């Protein structure tokens, strides 16, 4: 069955459709020049942004940011990506393919210049790894194919250019029937089945490497790689890198609306721990904290300390673990804090509520005192971890106790 559809290239709107501002003549010219050369790389959000800029300075700022986001090596002062693209632009403008060994006489200017499909592909991917031309006949158009391989040696792209009486189109019928694909190669609008067979025979005869036949059959070795994906403006690499940047889960989390007086240490809380036992084998714990050794949230004329505290008791013999966890705050007059920087204040821990195993803030599981009372007699390793809730400064202890 021969269909009657015409081939239509699937590409982004041509650069000339992406209108620049008309409010300022210099800005308009600068923008148009920019779009002429680099329009294929401009993403839709960037285009929207560019169209909203009406001054030369604003467009220059856009361009600076445009290149910065695409720099392929942020560790050098050069913008390697811009250098690469400008070099390819120059090669297009100086018609580098005119003297090419494989496709001599090929001109970008005859295929739309900087706005044509050939320039589009060349700007994105540079010199093809394989390029071939095949002259047609009365039935089949002149063809040119460009192959690009990936680092695994597999065909990443097969771009097929069809030249019908000077009009060059990029083949894009990979998702259609084989007949419909062959029709794109035909010199006739409505080729007959017989003419399609002639085209096929001609390809087999004149294309012993099957490069052109393969270009009709398949765009890429990889089934998920399509023509439109290959020619869409790529996301700036810096944005991709940002999305894949490793996450830091230990970061401080200081709310912008809170004011702090920071302690004199950058990473740790200046504090001592005391674990006391009495004749009744009751264990009690307290902290002695240096006023200037911690960070204070300023609440009017008071300073608030915010801590996460975690304590575990592990029996050295049975390895049984009892755990305690709480987030707590306390306040002291700012004047006292400032007047006694090198003094300590005490925080008794025994009556702090335990939230280790509960998500219900209203129903803690006892207190620290309850845990120390409930553990069996024995030798214990006690790990204590004290951290500022916001700044993540910390102090850790590891002690050994014997409960009799």
């Amino acid at each position: 069955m021969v269909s009657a559809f015409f081939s239509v290239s699937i590409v982004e709107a041509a650069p000339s459709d992406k209108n620049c501002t008309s409010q300022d003549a210099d800005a308009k010219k600068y923008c148009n020049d920019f779009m002429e050369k680099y329009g294929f790389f401009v993403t839709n959000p960037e285009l929207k942004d560019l169209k909203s800029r009406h001054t030369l300075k604003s467009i220059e700022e856009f361009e600076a940011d445009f290149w910065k986001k695409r720099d392929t090596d942020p560790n050098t002062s050069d913008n390697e990506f811009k250098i690469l693209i400008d070099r390819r632009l120059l090669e297009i403008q100086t018609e580098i393919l005119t003297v090419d060994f494989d496709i001599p006489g090929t001109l970008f200017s005859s295929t739309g210049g900087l706005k044509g499909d050939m320039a589009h592909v060349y700007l994105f991917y540079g010199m093809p790894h394989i390029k071939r031309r095949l002259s047609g006949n009365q039935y089949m158009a002149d063809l040119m194919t460009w192959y690009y391989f990936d680092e695994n040696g597999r065909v990443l792209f097969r771009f097929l250019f069809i030249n019908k009486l000077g009009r060059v189109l990029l083949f894009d019928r990979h998702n259609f029937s084989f007949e419909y694909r062959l029709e794109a190669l035909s010199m006739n609008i409505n080729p007959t089945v017989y003419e399609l067979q002639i085209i096929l025979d001609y390809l087999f005869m004149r294309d012993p490497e099957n490069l052109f036949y393969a270009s009709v059959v398949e765009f890429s070795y990889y089934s998920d790689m399509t023509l439109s994906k290959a020619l869409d403006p790529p996301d700036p690499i810096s944005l991709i890198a940002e999305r894949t940047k490793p996450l830091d889960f230990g970061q401080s989390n200081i709310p912008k609306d809170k004011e702090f007086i920071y302690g004199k240490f950058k990473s740790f809380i200046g504090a001592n721990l005391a674990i006391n036992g009495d004749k009744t084998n009751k264990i009690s714990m307290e902290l002695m904290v240096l006023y200037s050794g911690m960070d204070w949230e300023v609440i009017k004329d008071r300073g608030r300390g915010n801590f996460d505290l975690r304590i575990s008791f592990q029996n050295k013999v049975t390895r049984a673990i009892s755990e305690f966890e709480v987030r707590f705050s306390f306040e002291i007059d700012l004047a006292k804090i400032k007047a006694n920087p090198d003094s300590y204040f005490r925080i008794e821990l025994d009556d702090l509520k335990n939230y280790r195993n509960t998500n219900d803030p209203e129903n803690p599981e006892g207190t620290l005192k309850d845990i120390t009372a409930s553990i069996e007699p024995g030798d214990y390793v006690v790990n204590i971890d004290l951290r500022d809730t916001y700044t993540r400064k910390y102090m850790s202890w590891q002690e050994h106790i014997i409960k009799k």
Partner: protein
Amino acid sequence: MRKILLLVILLIPWPCRAQTASISPPPDLSGWREVSRSRIEVVISESLNIYMGFDIEYVNPVNPNEFIRVITKHRPSIIKGRNAPNDRLISEVVLSRYAERDRAQMTEELFKEADPVICVKWRIKKDPRTGKEIQDGDIETWFRVNSGDWLFNKNQEIRVEFLTEHIDGKLNKNILLGRKYSFAGVYNIFKPSRSDIMLAMEAK
């Protein structure tokens, strides 16, 4: 899970407890040249690393036979790597350059936010008999206690222990999490928050 409580705090000044060694500040390192710098880190898995401090060696520019090693501590940074997008059009080489830049920036920020906690100073000389380098004089150590003061002693070793902790959830086992440096009866622990570790492990 946790509740914020307001406590009444007893304002009792607490004097610094004297140690067996003397309390003395470490030497000023202005002008000393950095010879090497490495991270104090723990590798939990291929995609999860914990950075806790730096180990830096300096040489005295006036006396090239004199060295100081400084251990610094910063807030633990629990780094979870994310997979690069599975996209044939994205160059892994280029992404790795961005990763290198990000790592360098992060390292520099952590370095600025670190406190020195251990300083060890020593000198070397050439053994006249063998021609090899040998220790010259005492090894001087400054060790920071919890109050922030420095404890000083000579020729006393620093013991390093590796700390493990039980991690619930997917792992449900003890894993190596931190380090404990001990000196003259006091110690300094480098350790991340267990809840931060759990968050990192559960994050996709």
